């Protein structure tokens, strides 16, 4: 596959050791592009979480999965043949 003109400078062989084909370029683009994109996304997510107060009041955070109907202190799962009331 021939390289587009604008990639000529990148893909033109200068020496045997430095030769980069268009396929090599795409592999590097995929690898480095994804590292930058996803690394950046992780940093943005962390910054958003800090700004949004997600890392404040850990005590309250740990209790968000409970509510008045399934409060702290209530077991919510058991074998079907185990009875509390001897049924």
């Amino acid at each position: 596959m021939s390289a587009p003109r604008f990639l000529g400078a990148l893909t033109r062989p200068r020496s045997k050791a430095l030769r980069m084909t268009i396929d090599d370029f795409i592999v590097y683009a995929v690898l480095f592009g994804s590292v930058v994109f996803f690394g950046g996304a992780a940093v943005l997510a962390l910054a958003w979480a800090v700004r949004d107060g997600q890392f404040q009041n850990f005590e309250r955070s740990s209790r968000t999965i409970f509510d008045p109907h399934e409060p702290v202190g209530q077991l919510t799962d058991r074998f079907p043949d185990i009875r509390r009331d001897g049924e």
Partner: protein
Amino acid sequence: MTEVGRNGTDDKARYALERARIDASCRLPTLVWICSGVIWLLIGSTLALFASIKLHSPEWLFPDVSWLTFGRVRAAHLSSVALGWSFSMAIAVSIWQMCRLARCEMIYPKMLIVAAVIWNIGMVVGVVGILIGYGQSVEWLDMPPVVAPFLVTGLGIVAAWTVATFRNRREPHVYVTQWYLLGAMFWMPWLYVTAVLVIFGLDITLLGMNLRFSPATGVVQATTNWWFNHNVLGLWLTPVGVGTAYYLIPKVIGRPVYSYYLSVIGFWALALFYSWAGMHHLIGGPIPAWMASASIVGSMMMLIPVAAVALNHHMTMRGHFHHLRYSPTLRFVVFGAIAYTAVSVQGAFESLKSFSEIAHFTHYTVAHAHLGVYGFYAMIMFGATYYIVPRLTGREWASGRMIRWHFWLTAIGITLYFVSLSIGGWYQGLALIDANIPFIRIVRGTVPYLMSRSVAGILMTIGHVIFATLVVMNVCGFGRSRSGPTLFVEKRVTSVYEPAALSV
């Protein structure tokens, strides 16, 4: 009734109703993905038995049928359980938990069903493709590249749905489980697309334009392969498994997680270190030395999130271990959490060069991989299924005895598997580095351990059949109907749990 009492009752009813509505909205898509996972588990288990038995008895059952030879059956087993069972269950458990934690009813449920159909078409084409000889010699990407568009589309739909649900959430706080699930849904499509593009290349014609580039070759291909493989475990199965444990353990025993701070540290440390670890599978191979060293450092740094998770789960359970007797979910999830700690610590030390010198390229690695994917991940998925399905169908499990059989068969099975192959693999490794021992003698020496593995596989497969029977019975209406919004313990448990009142 006093004003306070009435408000309390109203609050309870409101939350109960909200949860019932959320569960009802999740019912069909979650059950479709769970059933998909169970079917692939049965297919994968059958293929695993074939592969295991053929490794020590190659003449057993149709030795001349090419599509039942070890090479094909083993790759088909891997794809069935890794991409069929594990992915389907990851998606089922994730979508239900996302709705629960976001406190919002499921949006676009049909989209998730379409994704399941697309995913399963890809899986059928891929597994049949491997068996009839179109498999690729790329670990974890054994299926023919033609299935990639199906899997990417299916996964892409689920990832997009996850983002939409997150944006639609009513609960402003992001619980640690959501961090793990969001991370997994963000990482996995990236991993898969990058690995497929780099390893298999691309050659498509779109709107008259031909887009093509060749796959990477040599070292780049191998490193991409192991970067992908290891990250499927670390950035997909691990976040889903650990995140699920972070929801189910506190929820089942009714106790907040011991240290929320540690749980957050664990997530971000996983995000930071795990993607470095994959290259330790190529130690001793022709990769740059810095790459192996960086990978070993990343692997050892993983001890930080692992210690955070292990400490947190243990301290949350402290004083509540007696609940293991009563809760099927807890029994499986705690087993999985313990296996997570074990496999992660083992994996960190396994990455060291001196350790790899013996254990690498032996059955020891196979034992390690199964402790992770089965002992940790699959066991947590079993536990999650026991928690989720009754809440979706409104029916109790048909038999507690069958659940206990399932647990003990799978727990004993994976323990036997791990112990036998670890011992056999270690001896195999010691023998392989001794040039005076003939290779065929080493191969013969592994046979007893491989036979133990087949026995372990039979135990686990029987467990899977029991599990599948329970799921089918529940979905088809066998089992007592439940009344009330929680659908599982509503009628029997008062607001404060009293273990002394239980009778077995």
